[in-house]
């Protein structure tokens, strides 16, 4: 045959020719994953050794509860980011879905009210996606406009917070299965199903491929627009679900909730190695990113770091984490 060289052995170089040691297990390159798991393990270890309250059951349950909203939003965000887009409207959708659900609880059965909340998220996602895919508008601006509009609509629906009386409303947010909150299980289910969706179904693979090269995908006979709409719809659905769960957990729905939630969700994806240019990102690593963010918050609280210093440190830690991530990143 031709003078083709054999494929590189388990090492690779970064653009300036430095070596990055690689870890290959069962034919898969797990360098990134290993580095990331190490990072989380170190965080947990440091936490366990330095904050004696860290490993208490209460605190662990807290951790599980605290990752629900960011987790749900991050999965939806990942799907959108994979297409090369971004969804800034999720925080507003959380508010809208929560307030609508809380508002409907008095008239409708609770599950129906909650379903309406999720469906409202789906609806907003559909509109976002349609505008972006059909008219080829910049996702950043469309979802930024949606952020504003949907927030306004949440207030139009109710200017004041709504606290349903029915204790059934709180179940979703506060029930536990053994030591694990049901809401956490729901989020884990989303990640599991979502992982299978993205890696093993045609629409999931199409979404990843679109972020890599949309024109190639279109020429391969796949309807790019429909899949872009699907991605934003998934993000909307996740945000709608997050809104319902959050309202149920807090016990009261506020139209002003969820400001800047999108930033944490995006941060989780990027900490997990997703590229905002699309086409690269992993469900597992995004989950890792969520863990990292929640751990940072929890630790800063456990150490009793002063609020403003918390902000200072949180920013610095995120930089440190992505720096560590970077030295382990495989560049293409």
């Amino acid at each position, binding site marked *: 045959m*031709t*003078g*083709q060289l054999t494929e590189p052995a388990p*090492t690779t170089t970064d653009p300036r020719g430095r070596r990055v040691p690689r870890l290959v297990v069962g034919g898969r390159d797990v360098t990134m994953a290993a580095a990331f798991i190490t990072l989380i393990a170190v965080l947990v270890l440091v936490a366990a050794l330095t904050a004696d309250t860290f490993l208490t059951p209460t605190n662990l349950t807290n951790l599980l509860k605290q990752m629900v909203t960011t987790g749900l939003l991050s999965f939806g965000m990942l799907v959108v980011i994979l297409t090369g887009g971004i969804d800034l409207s999720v925080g507003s959708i959380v508010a809208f879905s929560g307030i609508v659900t809380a508002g409907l609880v008095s008239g409708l059965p609770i599950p129906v009210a909650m379903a309406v909340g999720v469906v409202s998220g789906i609806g907003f996602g559909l509109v976002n996606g349609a505008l972006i895919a059909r008219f080829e508008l910049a996702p950043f601006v469309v979802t930024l406009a949606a952020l504003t509009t949907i927030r306004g609509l949440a207030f139009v629906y109710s200017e004041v917070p709504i606290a349903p009386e029915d204790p059934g409303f709180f179940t979703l947010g506060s029930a536990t299965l053994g030591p694990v909150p049901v809401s956490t299980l729901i989020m884990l289910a989303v990640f599991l199903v979502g992982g299978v969706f993205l890696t*093993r179904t045609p629409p999931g693979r199409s979404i990843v491929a679109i972020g*890599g090269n949309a*024109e190639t995908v*279109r020429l391969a*006979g796949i309807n790019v627009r429909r899949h872009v709409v699907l991605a934003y719809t998934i993000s909307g659905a996740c945000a709608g679900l997050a809104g319902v769960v959050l309202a149920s957990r807090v016990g009261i729905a506020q139209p002003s909730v969820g400001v800047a939630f999108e930033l944490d969700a995006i941060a989780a994806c990027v900490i997990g190695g997703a590229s905002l240019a699309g*086409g690269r990102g992993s469900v597992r690593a995004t989950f890792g990113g969520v863990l990292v963010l929640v751990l940072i918050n929890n630790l800063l609280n456990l150490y009793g770091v002063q609020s403003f210093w918390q902000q200072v440190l949180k920013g610095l830690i995120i930089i440190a984490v992505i720096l560590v991530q970077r030295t382990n990143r495989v560049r293409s």
Partner: protein
Amino acid sequence: MTLELRGVRKDYGGVEVLHGVDLVGRPGEVLAVVGANGAGKSTLIKILSGAQSMSAGEMRIDGEAAEFRSPHDAHARGIRTVYQELSIVPGLSVTENLLMGNFPKRRGLIDWAAAHARARELLESIGFGAIDPRTLAGRLSVARQQMVEIAKALVSEPRVLVLDEPSAVLAGSDLESLFALVRRLRERGVLVIYVSHRLAEVMELATSIVVVKDGRVIATTEPARTSESELIGLMAGRRLEQIYPDRRAEPGEVRLSVHGLTRRGEFEDVSFALRAGEIVGLFGLVGSGRSELARCVFGAEPATSGQVKVAGGDVRFRAPSDAIAAGLALVTEDRKRTGLVGGMSVLDNIGLTTMYGMRRGPLIDAARRRERVGEMIDRLSIQPAHCASMRVVNLSGGNQQKAVLAKWLLAEPRVLILDEPTRGVDMSTRIAIYRMIDDLARDGLAVLLISSDLTEVLGATDRILVMNQGRVTGELRSDRTTEDEILAHAIGQAA
């Protein structure tokens, strides 16, 4: 100046791709570097131009040791490079692409009038005067963009000009301009290092030829002392008797017919038919509208008027998916931009078109897909054999091209449109591709082969359509025509 490489080695993270290359180039020489895909030509060139560092060995300029830490160092020594991948900035004007980093200034600010004038002067001086320096580079055809790249390298009167496959996207008079330019530079005492898979032009232009194989120089020769077939033999490491398979076409029923198809501004009133078992060539000069025609037939762009018929019935392809459903496949001319999803695995790429059809419940039938893709990898001998889970960008150019082919073959098309399928592909891979097209046609596939390579069009097809300025100007039998006749149609001067 004399440029000398001694024992140059290069490894990418432990894998050595150059194993001690020696090379000497002298002023006024055209040093051709040939070799199969992945032989290490581009790597060699990146070392010469400071874009990559060598792992061992040395470089000497006029006898003195030199070390390049960045492209800037190479520029400073008068070495300029035109890389294999196009690298113009599409959003900037031609002038700006040319003069980037050294604009004429007046009172501290860029003097745009002077800059455009200088760019125009430069383009004219090297025979590329047809390019307007004020247009956005991204609006130019790929060929013109390539010419801008070449002009860019000549802004600062280099002493060494390195060209990595400059002709791959050129044809016709653009190619002639390039050749004339190379000759003029040679006369001026510039050392030109020229990488190409087109051996005919190598034989025509080079003063000496270096053959690279598996990261080693295995022969240094001159056009007068060798032949194309000898070079091919050296590159491939075995003798190749025949490049094009014998065609004995017995065309079957009409698979695809096009009637008066027009897309305003691109092509007009195009009609032709493709029959089962037939390979039809579509020749034309760059910009004659062939690719647009192919994309339009495939439903990737809407037509202004005209019809496409498949197996007799009228169809209107609104999107490529409609065309695919009707049995069409299109291998596009630019694999990087329209053929592959670079960041995904070979498996994902080859399985892309067929993924929706290969389901078990909502999931992709992973086992079946792996098996079918594996068969394709075998059949097209995509290297390395275990590449299914590799990212497709890590394949060499020729193998990437095969991956694109595999993707479409897996869809089992009845009509296959190939747009420049052998661009940048080495000779042995080309031969493999010609074999395969031939085999498929024998099994009843209808093939439309778009190519700017006259010998290819003549050798690999049964029938040739020629386009000029968006119109079909000739239809010729491959076994009864000549290169001159085809060209005459292509430039619209046939009797």
